[in-house]
């Protein structure tokens, strides 16, 4: 069984390996021995984390182009490694960068591609990828019949399970052709979101809407997010009222999110809002109106006054974190 190439995604802020990569490695182990492709500076913590999730081999690329030409450099690396190692599959985390890299690698290798898979299993003749299509109304299972399968995976809903190995590190030198310099990164401007995870890739998202009542009360949303280690978002109305920054608008024309847990506080659940969050694995909602459409998509709903329920919830979460109930406590999530 050939290796499975897994492109490592790193946090832009501090270069640490993202949770999405741990989930990818977990999926990759079903298909073959994972080979992690790490672009950028090599540090012991990253290698150790990749090893913890089963990457027996880590290929590192440290050329200076990694930062300046992020997509092109990763394309060249994956194409080069695919030709040398003849892997069974190439796995990349879904996302703006991931989608572009996967598409270009597929053309270069003339390989079949599946994007935004939600699950993968090994079939008799290669991996079978499962996609949720047409607004989640159908599940499509596809397999790739030409070339090295290139698959991008929505990792937010995938679990990361450790399977420690001691990784061997290979330094890879790639030839970076001139045409790779076509698109250059001019600059990056970071949002001042503080320590909270990024909305697009957060496993937990807490959002507030009109029902929160005021800009001051919107702090309750921040408190719930902090208690659960999640990102903060707002509905169309909340952002229009200025309670929450525009880049955190969860809306059909704002951010489309696919977290593992989505908590809607005082959001009625308009069609445009649902279009942006229906990809969440678990949906929890609190609102005062029992007829709110959000309760038709929520796995768990609370009809009640936010101003009273949220403080009680925060107290309860704090109590459970300090003295975990034996039945409730699972292994810590990554």
């Amino acid at each position: 069984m050939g290796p499975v190439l897994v492109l490592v995604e790193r946090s832009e802020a501090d270069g640490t390996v993202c949770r999405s990569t741990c989930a990818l490695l977990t999926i990759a182990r079903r298909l073959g021995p994972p080979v992690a492709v790490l672009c950028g500076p090599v540090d012991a913590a990253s290698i150790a984390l990749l090893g913890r999730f089963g990457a027996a081999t880590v290929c590192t690329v440290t050329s200076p182009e990694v930062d300046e030409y992020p997509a092109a450099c990763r394309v060249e690396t994956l194409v080069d490694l695919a030709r040398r190692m003849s892997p069974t599959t190439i796995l990349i985390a879904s996302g703006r960068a991931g989608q572009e890299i996967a598409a270009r690698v597929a053309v270069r290798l003339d390989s079949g591609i599946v994007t935004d898979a939600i699950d993968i299993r090994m079939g008799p003749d290669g991996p079978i990828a499962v996609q949720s299509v047409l607004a989640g109304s159908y599940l499509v299972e596809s397999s790739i019949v030409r070339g090295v399968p290139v698959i991008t995976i929505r990792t937010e809903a995938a679990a990361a399970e450790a399977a420690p190995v001691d990784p061997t590190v290979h330094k890879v030198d790639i030839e970076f052709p001139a045409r790779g310099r076509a698109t250059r990164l001019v600059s990056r401007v970071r949002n001042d979101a503080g320590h909270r995870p990024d909305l697009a890739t957060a496993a937990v998202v807490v959002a507030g809407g009109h029902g929160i009542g005021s800009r001051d009360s919107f702090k309750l949303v921040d408190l719930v997010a902090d208690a659960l280690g999640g990102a903060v978002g707002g509905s169309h109305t909340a952002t229009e009222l200025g309670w929450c920054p525009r880049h955190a608008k969860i809306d059909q024309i704002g951010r489309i999110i696919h977290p593992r847990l989505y908590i809607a506080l005082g959001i009625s659940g308009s069609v445009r809002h649902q279009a942006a969050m229906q990809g969440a694995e678990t949906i929890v909602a609190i609102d005062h109106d029992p007829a709110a459409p959000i309760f038709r998509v929520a796995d768990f709903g609370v009809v009640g006054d936010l101003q009273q329920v949220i403080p009680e919830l925060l107290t309860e979460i704090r109590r459970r974190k300090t003295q975990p109930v034996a039945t409730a406590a699972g292994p810590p999530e990554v």
Partner: protein
Amino acid sequence: MKVVVLVKHVPCVIGDLSFATDLTVDRVGVRARLNEADELAVGQARRIALSRVDVRITAVTVGPVGAVDALRRALMLGADQGVHVLDEGLHGCDVLATSRVLAAAVVRLGFDLVLCGAASADSGMSAVPAMVAERLGVAVLCFADTLEVTRDGVEIRRDNGGGLEILAADLPAVVSVTERCGGLRYPSFAAIVSARHEFVRTWSLADLDIDAAEVGLRGAATVVRAVTPAAGGKNRVVVEGDASSTAVRMADFLAERQFL
């Protein structure tokens, strides 16, 4: 300056679609429209045309007979001419084949800038722009939230979740735009009328020197094995009552699903 806009005719309501017996999306009798992000791509092309004198905008689509409506809409929104790649052999094309056909059409037209929507409402793979660029051997700038064309280059801004990225490339280049890039205006009555009478060119696979055996269902590198309706029967719980008891039940639920 030659601007080519790649457009797609997509169903108006995505949730009501079903699959045909060959496991392709059944598009017969389904109301369709020009993909929203592609409308904005045409709008951006028009905006560029207003600031220069030498711009010619061509809209290109690949699709069945009805897809010509997408070109008509693009013509109303500011495209100067339309090209429809129409061939029996195109049915069931995967994304590799689609990008190959589009790239061949773009090469035949000649281009300085290729614009398109960042994702289609029906499939949403977002793979076509990068694939077309790779086939054309030019730079690609995906998911542009804003787009500026300078004298010999193009600069975009895109939101990458954690912040803003500013990317630049020299022309020729391929740029895909999001619904956030703006530039769309309601077409004038005169534009609507004249678009109805505009001549739309139709090209077949032979016109593009592509062998029909290499595209369509037969040439697909990805094969759909099974399509199943997603199980909608989720177990939903809604609780009412006093604040502390509902808060405890919510915490129980979160703990059960291992979020605490």
